[in-house]
């Protein structure tokens, strides 16, 4: 690798040789950075001899560098010294300068030792186009920059790739799928085939999937939490958001803003809040006994790492424990950046069986439509009901029965906690239930409440244990029902609050100084098992937490009106008829019983209650039950049905993890040596000053301001970093090879001006990603043939000079998706929950934790689930799917900006023997027989084209025909049994065909899928 880089450097410097003056950024800084800055750079803690070489004033003043006078410069003496005590870099540093490097430094000092700002930190300026020289190759701006570099190196571009090869390249690059035979034929017939293909591919829903797949690596998306327990999480609605954003061609600045700060946008939509799941994709640890704060800090650090790598192209994390050794980022800068992400209400240990808070519901767009329709319907039905009631009587209360109905059947009450005959003491009281209550068995609670104003949440009843130390067993176990400060009913069930808890809050809020009836029923441990009723009508709920790991048993004194937390949380209103009942309750029967109870109790309640406007709603209900008016009854039932359907639908929505600011910001300190518990100075959120673009003075220091800063047209990094990654996606290597590092240690760009051109074009066109994709794939540079002479492969193995087209191995996802596509098995559905394709049996055995957490067992799917695109495969971080992992997909434990494709024997074994590929081969074989023509040669050529997009050469076809004959003979004479290849996979077998023929064709199809050409974009 070193040798190759050196070769490139020679090529590049050769290009610049005409200038002769040493370029600081290109030639000098890398030498100083690699060899000197470690001890004489920005990091104060590491600095030796008080010397800084990264700041010109220091370097000059110290005498290390005397501009124009190498002989007088101490630096020159030291780097030339052979005395081990004097020599720089010191021998024990394992660093040494080459004679050329020493010469470069001397020349630079001779020429005045001028420093310059690191290229990537300078603002982006649209460069002038190089003059068009020579022939008319490549008229696009991109081509002019590339041609300029080629000319300087005495190279000429390659000719255009053969059309089929180019069309296949485009299809795989833009959608991750091969072009179908029909597409190839259609495009080839167009006036401008490549342009026709690009138009169609950019409009395909698979374009978004392809772009998203790259982004999911950066965003470390997975379907499990990682770490020891590695339970399943639900983040796929966020993944679908990404696919949609790319398909909609959302402007990229908005793409950044919504993911970083969608929740903070004015009137944030459902979709914008969902986008912030980006910052919750990090791993989460649920190992018992970990120290919460240690891991909470890790999660925030992960957000810093991901955000800075994704858009700044900087390794900010290097400044977590000490000032950055190379880049101008201090430890203080790091924690200022950290402060942007340090303000959500999260816990270190979480996610044992479900998502970690904060959560939000994320219905699919179809469900959102269904929800809107139900709400509309409900509203109409409610209006109708009101009209009927109003018409029937102007004084509903008068017609209500004076006493409770004789046929009312209130729930069996185990404990009558409080009735109005008792006075309610200020500090509440305690009562022990006659028999234990449990969430597994179910229980319900009901009461009449008259809230007084409250600033803080107040408890109604609690068994939650806050008395034990937080870190100890037993802390935070119990149940609690109370009210938020806004008056919503707040229900908490926990084995360890807050991580392992169910926490549900009603949408309905109780007013102050008005009587309301509240009922809660609990029928299990999940959030959806908690139902809340206000005035006898079920309220929609918000799920705050849904990670309760087991039964919550109430067998100790229940604190009424207070908790044992050491605060003033006391219930301060009026309370009547607080009742608690044990046992399983049917929600529908319960609701009806409560309503009866309300009718009865309301009529015996105080005058104040009877007078209240607030009571109209349930009194209308009372009226409805009392007045046997069929029209009212029908209208009521119609609304009730719709209401129940809506709540049921809402309960079915997946909950995803999102960002949500805490009302009171968490204080952020510098953490000394990076340790979570060693606090240094207090800092506020800010961006590194050294990038030369301060935040606006008056802007709030929050994630939204950060997003606006990143997408400020004057920002030096964001557009360059994003365009470089796009280039990398299409060419295999970025213009800056170190895609995740644009700092001073980064590799010099192969085409700096081209990179700036792309960045400027991107910004000026409103961050239009499809425009940029179109521009790049439309260039002659991209469309070159990827074949080259041995000499050129040797001279420029990574194709940094772009004298040929890109040749890249297919990504893991493409390898499998292509096999599914060409065999006709592919299920092209976009989005949805993860899929479970074939995986060897017991693959998790011996690795995963023994406890049966969600996601610790893998059950192979069936039907269409087996053939979903690979990006939807259940992504388990600690045991990645072998078919994908073998082809270099990352485990997604952290942000990855570049996969490194490898070439291993395990890949050969997978392509030969993985049922995924064998089944695809079987189906492709069938297709060759059914659709490919009538004779062997035509069928084989057809199959060859389906896989590679081109026609085989006569020699290639001869090899295939010959092999087919041999395979057919082996299967026919029984040397090999046909079921070896025909019994693989769930897909139905083609009926009527001869098994020997099918097996022989399947074998040939398998060969096609194994071709090096097939698993490369050529």
């Amino acid at each position, binding site marked *: 690798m070193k040798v190759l880089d050196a070769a490139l450097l020679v090529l590049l410097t050769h290009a610049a040789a005409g200038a002769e003056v040493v370029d600081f950024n290109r030639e000098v800084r890398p030498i100083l950075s690699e060899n000197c800055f470690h001890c004489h750079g920005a990091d104060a803690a590491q600095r030796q001899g008080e010397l800084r070489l990264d700041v010109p004033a220091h370097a000059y003043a110290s005498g290390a560098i005397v501009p124009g006078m190498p002989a007088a410069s101490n630096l020159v003496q030291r780097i030339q010294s052979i005395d081990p005590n004097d020599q720089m870099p010191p021998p024990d540093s394992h660093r040494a300068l080459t004679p050329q490097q020493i010469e470069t430094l001397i020349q630079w000092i001779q020429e005045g030792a001028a420093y310059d700002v690191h290229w990537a930190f300078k603002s982006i300026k649209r460069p002038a186009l190089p003059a068009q020289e020579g022939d008319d190759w490549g008229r696009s701006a991109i081509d002019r920059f590339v041609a300029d570099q080629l000319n300087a190196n005495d190279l000429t571009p390659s000719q255009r790739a053969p059309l089929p090869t180019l069309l296949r390249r485009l299809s795989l690059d833009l959608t991750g799928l091969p072009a179908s035979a029909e597409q190839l034929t259609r495009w080839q017939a167009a006036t401008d085939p490549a342009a026709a293909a690009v138009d169609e591919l950019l409009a395909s829903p698979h374009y978004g999937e392809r772009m998203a797949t790259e982004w999911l690596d950066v965003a470390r998306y997975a379907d499990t939490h990682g770490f*020891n327990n590695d339970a399943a999480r639900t983040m796929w609605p966020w993944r679908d958001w990404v696919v949609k954003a790319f398909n909609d061609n959302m402007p990229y600045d908005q793409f950044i803003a919504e993911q970083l700060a969608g929740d903070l946008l004015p009137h944030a939509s459902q979709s914008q809040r969902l986008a912030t799941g980006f910052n919750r994709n990090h791993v989460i640890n649920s190992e018992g*006994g970990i120290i919460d704060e240690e891991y909470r800090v890790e999660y925030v650090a992960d957000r810093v790492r991901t955000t800075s790598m994704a858009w700044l192209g900087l390794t900010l994390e290097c400044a977590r424990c000490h000032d950055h050794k190379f880049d101008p980022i201090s430890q203080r800068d790091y924690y200022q950046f950290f402060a942007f992400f340090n303000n959500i209400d999260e816990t270190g240990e979480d996610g044992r069986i479900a998502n970690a808070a904060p959560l939000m519901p994320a219905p699919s767009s179809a469900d959102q439509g269904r929800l809107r329709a139900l709400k509309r319907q409900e509203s109409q039905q409610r209006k109708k009901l009101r009209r009927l009631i109003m018409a029937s009587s102007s004084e509903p209360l008068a017609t209500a029965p004076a006493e409770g109905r004789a046929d009312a059947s209130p729930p069996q009450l185990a404990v009558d906690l409080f009735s109005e005959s008792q006075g309610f003491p200020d500090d509440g009281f305690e009562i022990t239930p006659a028999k234990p209550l449990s969430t597994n068995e179910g229980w319900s609670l009901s009461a009449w409440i008259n809230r007084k104003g409250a600033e803080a949440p107040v408890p109604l009843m609690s068994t939650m244990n806050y008395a034990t130390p937080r870190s100890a067993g037993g802390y935070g176990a119990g149940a609690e029902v109370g009210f938020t400060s806004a008056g919503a009913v707040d229900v908490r069930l926990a084995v360890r609050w807050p991580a392992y808890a169910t926490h549900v809050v009603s949408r309905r809020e109780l007013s102050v100084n008005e009587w309301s009836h509240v009922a809660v029923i609990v029928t299990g441990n999940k959030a959806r098992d908690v139902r809340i009723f206000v005035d006898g009508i079920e309220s929609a709920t918000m799920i705050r937490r849904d990670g309760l790991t087991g039964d919550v048993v109430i067998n100790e004194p229940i604190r009424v009106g207070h908790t044992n937390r050491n605060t003033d949380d006391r219930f301060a209103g009026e309370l009547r008829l607080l009742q608690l009942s044990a046992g399983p309750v049917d929600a529908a029967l319960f609701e009806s019983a409560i309503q009866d109870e309300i009718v009865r109790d309301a009529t015996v309640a105080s005058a104040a209650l009877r007078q209240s406007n607030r009571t109209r709603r349930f009194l209308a209900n009372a009226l409805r039950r009392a007045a046997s008016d069929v029209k009212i009854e029908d209208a009521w039932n119609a609304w009730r049905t719709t209401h129940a359907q809506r709540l049921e639908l809402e309960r079915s929505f997946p909950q995803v993890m999102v960002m949500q600011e805490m009302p009171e910001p968490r204080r952020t300190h510098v953490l000394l040596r990076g340790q979570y518990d060693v606090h240094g100075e207090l800092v506020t959120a800010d961006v590194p000053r050294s990038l030369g673009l301060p935040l606006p003075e008056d802007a709030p220091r929050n994630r939204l301001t950060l997003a606006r800063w990143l997408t400020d047209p004057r920002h030096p990094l964001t557009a360059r970093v994003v365009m470089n990654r796009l280039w990398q996606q299409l060419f295999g290597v970025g213009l800056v090879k170190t895609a995740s590092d644009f700092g001073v240690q980064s590799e010099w760009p192969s085409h700096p001006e081209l990179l700036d051109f792309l960045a400027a074009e991107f910004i000026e066109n409103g961050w239009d990603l499809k425009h940029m994709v179109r521009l790049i794939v439309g260039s002659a540079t991209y469309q070159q043939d990827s074949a*080259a002479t041995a000499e050129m*492969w040797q001279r420029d193995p990574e194709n940094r000079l772009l004298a040929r087209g890109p040749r890249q191995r297919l990504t893991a996802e493409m390898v499998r998706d292509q096999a599914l596509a060409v065999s006709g098995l592919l299920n092209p559905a976009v989005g949805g929950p993860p899929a479970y394709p074939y995986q060897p049996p017991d693959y998790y055995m011996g690795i995963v934790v023994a406890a049966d957490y969600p996601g610790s067992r893998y059950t192979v799917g069936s039907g269409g689930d087996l053939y979903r695109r690979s990006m939807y495969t259940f992504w388990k971080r600690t045991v990645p799917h072998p078919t994908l992992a073998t082809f270099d997909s990352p485990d997604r434990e952290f942000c990855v900006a570049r996969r490194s494709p490898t070439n291993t024997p395990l890949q050969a074994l997978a392509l030969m023997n993985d049922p995924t590929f064998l089944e695809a081969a079987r189906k492709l074989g069938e297709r060759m027989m059914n659709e490919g023509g009538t004779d062997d040669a035509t069928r084989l050529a057809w199959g060859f084209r389906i896989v590679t997009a081109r026609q085989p*050469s006569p020699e290639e076809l001869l090899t295939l025909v010959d092999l087919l004959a041999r395979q057919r003979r082996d299967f026919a004479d029984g040397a090999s049994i046909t079921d070896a290849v025909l019994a693989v996979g769930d897909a139905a077998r083609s009926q009527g065909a001869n098994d020997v023929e099918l097996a022989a064709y399947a074998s040939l199809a398998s060969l096609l899928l194994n071709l090096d050409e097939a698993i490369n974009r050529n």
Partner: protein
Amino acid sequence: MSPLDRFAIFAGRRQFLQHTSLGLGVAALSCLGGDAAVAPIGGLPTPQLSRLHIAPRAKRVIYLFQAGGPSQLELLDYKPQLDSRFRTELPESVRQGQRITGMVSGQGELLIAPSRFGFRATPNCGTPIGNLLPFTQKIGDRLCVVNSLRTEAINHDPAITFLQSGSQQPGRPSMGSWIDYGIGSECDNLPAFVVLISTPSNGRPDQGLLSRLWGSGFLPTRHQGVKLRSAGEPVDFLANPTGLHPTTRRSWLAALEELNQRRFEAVGDPEIQTRIAQYELAARMQTSVPELADVADESESTFALYGEDARKAGTYARNCLMARRLAERGVRFIQLYHRGWDHHGDLPNNIASLARDVDQASAALILDLEQRGLLEETLVVWGGEFGRTVYSQGAVTRETYGRDHHGRAFSIWLAGGGVKPGIRYGRTDDFSFNVIEGPVHIHDLQATVLACLGIDHERLTFAFQGRQYRLTDVHGTVVRDILT
């Protein structure tokens, strides 16, 4: 000519590479019976280090990882004085405010639990070894017991990740990957880095493993460990479909090579030739791996040595036997994991069972390697990710008690290639709580393992994201006192 050039390890590899470029293709194809033309293959990448930094003491490593954190107090760190402190509070002068895990931090008292099991001194060298390890006791004079290992991590995931990759957080390459990256393979038909996993005989382990423990982090994925599975196929997708005759596969492979070779001639991409070579290697693995996994050729005396468990695939004993077979075949880094050492409660019964699982086979491996002349070139390491506390988690009686995680002091043993036999290194205080002599940090252990293989841990680096990374981060000192 540097004296380093004389090292057999490299001479061996060079011969192999010559063999690869000239003859292996022929060998592979001839064993497949094909008649296609032989292309020179450069399939196997050359290692990063062209030359070893220091004189190597070992050619390979077998790491017997005891996952979960075995208690040093019962096995390797003898503290007879504790008997008299039964159920007394851990003195604050010992604890010194050190953090303890969330599992006991709410417990009112930290009461001393002396080991229920005795120790015996090894004849000649005197190293005390717990009576739960009778077979290990017999080979005590071959072992270097280190009582002074230290880690900062106190939970499983970060602690194992730290020991295996030098960082508590995910993302770094594992030790085996570093070694493969640095000095490559000695073997042309098996991966350089192989992983074997066993589970305890007494039930289900509480802790999971993570494939990142043998992952390659930011190194190319070809350096990651290959897990040999005990159920199903040892290597994913190794076997050809049942009923496919070798001749059918051979003609298929020959045609594939022919077409790939044609493509190479048209396109020029050298990766195509690597691909051709990898198909040949895959074909060799189809023979070599089943051969490796089939222990039918082992003698009765071998099973007597390793124990009856070794007849059963997936046991620790079988994996130890497999480790020897892998060592014989020249595999560079052999990583075993035995899970189930996490004994928070009822430690005496649980640890006795785990000790039974591993004792005989661990000792057998040492003796077997020794009698085959392999011990001197194979470094064997036995140990977990941390130790356990002297105080009990939960109630303590003479009969039973539990122990929480303890990273400040724990014990491992090493044997073979390059370490002094029959010594003890480092000392802990009377409570096995703090190291009082010869501390060995995780990074020191890693540096020492690399040193045994001839690698200077400070000079095996990989440039990633603007920084030179290494296994030992920016730390680590070779523990020279334990090396020969």
